[in-house]
């Protein structure tokens, strides 16, 4: 297979988009994070996000968040038209600072969980979920 210079450039751009896209966070998502954290730094450990690598249908994607000792966990779908999904506020009778739910994803994207810990610090976890287009619509 031979490529012209223009083709190669296009390929490079395509690859660049591929590399960047899954990790880009929309402005709306950044705003939501800033509002939740007040702009504080976020640790890489302390919150766990469990989501499928490939979702069979973006309409119903099972996810689980867990952050021992957190007072709240915010869940964001960074590639949705509006990134907010849910914020779990844990009360004194929560036996674990963890919850599962089912969410909508508009397409392949990063799902982000940010935990607010009891000491006021924050932790962040992120997971890329590929949303398949399906075969027969039926």
């Amino acid at each position, binding site marked *: 297979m031979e490529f012209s210079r223009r083709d190669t450039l296009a390929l490079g751009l395509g690859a660049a988009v591929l590399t960047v896209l899954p990790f880009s966070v929309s402005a709306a998502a950044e705003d939501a994070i800033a509002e939740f954290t007040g702009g504080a730094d976020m640790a890489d450990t302390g919150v766990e996000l469990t989501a499928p690598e490939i979702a069979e249908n973006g*309409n*119903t*994607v099972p996810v689980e968040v867990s952050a021992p000792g957190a007072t709240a966990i915010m869940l964001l*779908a960074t590639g*949705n*038209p*509006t990134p*907010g*999904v*849910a*914020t*779990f*506020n*844990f*009360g*004194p*009778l*929560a*036996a*674990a600072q*963890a*919850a*599962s*739910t*089912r*969410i*909508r*994803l508009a397409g392949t994207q990063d799902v982000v969980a940010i935990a607010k810990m009891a000491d006021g610090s924050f932790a962040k976890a992120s997971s890329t979920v590929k949303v398949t287009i399906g075969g027969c619509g039926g």
Partner: protein
Amino acid sequence: MASGVKPRVKVPKTAAAGDAITIKTLISHKMESGQRKDKEGNLIPRSIINRFTCEFNGQSVVDVTMEPAISTNPYFQFEATVPEAGDFVFTWYDDDGSVYDTTKPIKIA
């Protein structure tokens, strides 16, 4: 009140004092996102459940703020500590002002 809304919860009937139990909840609701259009191309207004709470004897277990990205028939699973016998109260708040609730008692075995 949106039609056909029915809360369902799964809570053990008994627990030992201080036990952690798993609770599952599911409420039948369309969760209209506000992003969809009807056949004429008009935006269908958002109509979702925007908050869910679980309390035990007046103390909070979990209080969830919900956005349109929560799937149809919202489902939650979480864990609660049972310090004594009493009632779990589950409450869902609809955009249209409706409030749906259900209560489950639990005994100490």
